[in-house]
């Protein structure tokens, strides 16, 4: 456990602070901004862990595309209330206890670390490790089939998002034809009765 890297300590501490800020912020926009900061710090972490290509991808995809999408939806839905009451009594204490167990177990296992590089010796990371050239080489030779499949997944998700969120302009009289929201809903036999 020697050799605590100061850069890693600072970035890691900031990442934890922004993550906690994200789940504690009352305003959803503040949450989203904490999340953008957190994803940026994760990109720096990837740089420290010799993954420069993933750092760039993280900034573009997560901090760029995904969080802009989240902010768009937050603004589309308008003002959100904070929802601080507790509908299920005792839920928070149960959740905190379970989280304590989960966190302790995860950190305990993570503290074991992983064995060093199987080739033995002190692991010296080659300079091209994780570079765009190395990643491209791996993606387009060894992993070319998953690469194509994942593009199909993205296409399906795009179509699905459009279909789900599409605004249907229903005619006004359709409401009467729908028994679930009809005015005389009391005549419909309830499944619990």
């Amino acid at each position, binding site marked *: *456990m*020697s*050799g*605590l*890297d100061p850069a*890693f300590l600072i970035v890691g501490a900031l990442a934890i602070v922004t*993550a906690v800020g*994200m*789940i504690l912020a009352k305003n*959803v926009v503040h*949450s989203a901004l904490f*999340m953008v900061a*957190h*994803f940026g710090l*994760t990109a720096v*972490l*990837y740089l*420290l*862990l*010799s*993954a420069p290509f993933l750092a760039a*991808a993280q900034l573009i*995809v997560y901090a760029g595309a995904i969080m802009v*999408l*989240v902010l768009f*939806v*937050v603004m589309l*839905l308008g003002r*959100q209330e904070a*929802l601080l009451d507790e*509908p299920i009594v005792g839920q*928070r204490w149960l*959740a*905190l206890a379970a*989280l304590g167990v*989960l966190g302790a177990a*995860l*950190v305990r296992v*993570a*503290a074991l*670390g*992983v064995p*060093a*590089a*199987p*080739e033995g010796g002190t*692991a010296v*990371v080659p300079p091209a*490790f*994780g570079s765009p050239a190395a*990643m491209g080489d*791996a993606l387009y030779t060894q992993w070319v089939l*998953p690469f194509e499949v*994942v593009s199909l*997944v993205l296409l399906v998700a*795009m179509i*699905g*998002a*459009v279909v789900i*969120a599409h605004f249907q302009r229903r005619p006004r009289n359709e409401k009467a034809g729908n028994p679930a929201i009809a005015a005389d809903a009391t005549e419909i036999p309830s499944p619990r009765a």
Partner: protein
Amino acid sequence: MIPLAAVLPPAQPLMLAALLFTIGAAGVLLRRNIIIVLMSVELMLNAVNITLVAVSRAMLQLDGQVFVFFSLTIAAAEVAVGLALVVALHRSLGSSDVDDVSSLRG
């Protein structure tokens, strides 16, 4: 290329990722706004990505980073569909409280 990375033992990124995963789980369990729950799920995904990158570096094998690349694209797809669901739910229920989405419970 980055000399700092050569001295970093693998256990510390793993512990950081474990902590971030727990924070994400706390967001899922404690918050009720559906957008914050979705972002907490993203936080948990991100923590697992950090684990994969750290192990990939410790083992000097690029496969972990390739896996993170795929996980990134799947996360993008998940967020797109998830946010579409949030918009659709908000339209039909008029709220973004996860406790209101209990109509599937029967």
